[in-house]
């Protein structure tokens, strides 16, 4: 009997564990097959991906239940495992809007076709691809969905950005309205901007001292709005320089910006009636390396000792190197930038600083042209509108109304 005891114990423990295992299987059998499985081209994208969605069912919506996605190039296979998903993604407003029912759907985006789950070199999807979805317990597949297919394509219109389009259209109409108003009444009021009044003083000082004016356009290319604003201001400054018969030097970091600046300055000299005084060599390229550019401009400052330094446009870490050297040579310095991180350095080292929006207003202030004055007025109107939205939106949000917040969602 004693010899039989270990065998009896093993048999007994085996039965117990088998019962436990069976219980586990029963628990897992409560899982249900995926429902309403759909494949379609991912909306609002440039192509390259297919989206899969299926209905969230409470039985399967557990962290320990993985879904397995299989793909094939033909409806009857062969099927290749693509990915397993445990933490299911759902509710993607950039693709499906902000509807509350989105939460009822799981979502997965497929961009590549894999030969196996561990395939490290997947190929992009190039033809109609067939998909099916399975619920697994980690080792066994417990149910398949129906087979669905889709092919991706690029979309011409990104509907998720429609709110931006509407804003741009409204903003454009507001600006056009104020431009027409400015054409009828050219004396629209613009408040005094001290930094810009000082430009005239700086040019006068440079003329009296017989020294040049150094004008920097910032470090960004023509794609940057601040560079566009800086070149616009350059035109106005160059015209005054031409009138005073002074000299302006514009070292550039970008060859395209340099060419644009040459055109702008040439045009300004023509408008001033001094085309003979224009010297193309005064607007020159240095290098596109940030600190090499800063070192060269610093060298230029200490050797040519300009009477005035104008820093307009976007700047990075070199701002203090430039402005500090300018302050050391005793030049009158005026900066204008929307680079928030560099503004403090300009404020501490320059005589006048145009902060952010003032850079964009500068051109209108200097020229008083209806086109630019109208644009500035339109911007002011939009700022007022934003203040109103801010106050109303915060109050609505406090009351639990999210309509205004949703209007400004970006993806």
């Amino acid at each position, binding site marked *: 009997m004693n010899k039989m005891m270990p065998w009896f114990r093993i048999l007994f423990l085996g039965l117990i564990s088998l019962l436990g295992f069976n219980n586990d299987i029963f628990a897992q059998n409560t899982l249900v097959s995926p429902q309403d499985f759909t494949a379609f081209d991912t909306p609002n994208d440039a192509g390259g991906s297919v989206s899969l969605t299926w209905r969230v069912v409470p039985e399967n919506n557990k962290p320990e239940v993985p879904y397995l996605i299989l793909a094939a190039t033909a409806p009857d296979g062969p099927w290749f495992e693509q990915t397993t998903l445990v933490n299911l993604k759902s509710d993607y407003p950039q693709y499906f809007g902000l509807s509350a029912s989105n939460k009822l759907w799981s979502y997965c985006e497929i961009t590549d076709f894999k030969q196996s789950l561990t395939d490290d070199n997947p190929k992009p999807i190039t033809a109609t691809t067939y998909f099916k979805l399975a619920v697994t317990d980690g080792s066994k597949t417990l149910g398949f969905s129906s087979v669905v297919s889709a092919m991706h394509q690029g979309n011409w219109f990104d509907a998720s*950005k429609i709110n931006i389009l509407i804003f741009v259209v409204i903003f454009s109409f507001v600006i056009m309205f104020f431009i027409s108003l400015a054409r009828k009444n050219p004396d629209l009021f613009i408040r005094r901007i001290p930094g810009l009044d000082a430009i005239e003083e700086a040019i006068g000082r440079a003329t009296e001292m017989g020294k040049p004016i150094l004008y920097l356009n910032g470090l960004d290319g023509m794609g940057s709005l601040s560079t566009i604003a800086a070149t616009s201001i350059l035109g106005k400054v160059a015209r005054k320089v031409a009138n005073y018969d002074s000299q302006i030097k514009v070292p550039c970091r970008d060859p395209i910006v340099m060419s644009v600046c040459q055109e702008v300055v040439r045009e300004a000299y023509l408008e001033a009636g001094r085309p003979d005084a224009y010297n193309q060599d005064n607007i020159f390229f240095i290098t596109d390396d940030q600190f090499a550019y800063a070192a060269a401009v610093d060298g230029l400052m200490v050797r040519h000792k300009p009477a005035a330094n104008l820093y307009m446009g976007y700047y990075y870490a070199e701002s203090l190197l430039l402005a500090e050297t300018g302050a050391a040579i005793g030049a009158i310095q005026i900066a204008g930038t929307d680079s928030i991180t560099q503004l403090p350095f300009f404020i501490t080292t320059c005589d006048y600083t145009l902060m952010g929006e003032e850079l964009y207003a500068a051109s209108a202030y200097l020229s008083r042209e209806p086109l630019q004055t109208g644009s500035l007025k339109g911007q002011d109107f939009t700022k007022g509108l934003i203040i109103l939205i801010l106050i109303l939106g915060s109050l609505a949000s406090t009351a639990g109304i999210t309509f205004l917040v949703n209007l400004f969602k970006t993806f």
Partner: protein
Amino acid sequence: MDNTVLLGVWLAVGLTLFMYSFLYKDNVFFRFGEHVYLGISIGYIIVRVIFNNFINDLYKPLVEDRDYILIIPALMGLALYTRFFTRIAWVSRVIFAFIVGFGAGLGIPRTIAGGIFKQLEGVLMPLAAIKDGFFFNADGNFTLVNINSLIIIVGITSVLVYFFFSVEHKGVVKSVSRVGIYFVMIAFGASFGYTVMGRMSLLIGRCYDLIEFSSPKYYYASIVLLIMLILVFIIYEVVIKKGEVLKTNE
């Protein structure tokens, strides 16, 4: 030690000291360092443009992959050079107009999305938790979460008022814009302090290298070059400049 490493160390120390010599005044060493830096950067740009842009972005796709659409941007790029020929210089202006228009078209929606919408989305927060009491959370504990929303609203509104150009800053507008400029200056102060700390860490890193390179392992590179630099400055100031002054007086 490998001679090339040693040469690299001496060059690095030398050029660092040359650039720092600008703190004394503009001098021949700084000019040498500046021009070496410029020359290297321009050489690097040319190589980068040839290999990355011309060969990889244009030549290979055009010749090997027969991607003929690239002929259009290539011609547009070439058209920029027409500005060297007076009679057809207008062609380059068309291309520049395209570049500026493209930049503005790309920049405006991005600025609206990032600069207005994203900011508004983050700011349109409840001003007070009505259900739980203004300064108290669900557990009845004191919280300043809601007062943050209020500060943000007051800050943004007053800063926007400061940037109003259509209204004279007088009376109430002046007071509100003054509050706005205080907010701006507090933000700038914080940013200034943060950036200065970052710059200090860069300086410490450079000093650390100079100290390391002053060891016998590198044949006292930092010390030797620093003494040489100082000696040259002294000789220049005391002997040569004095001689020049005497000559002028004669």
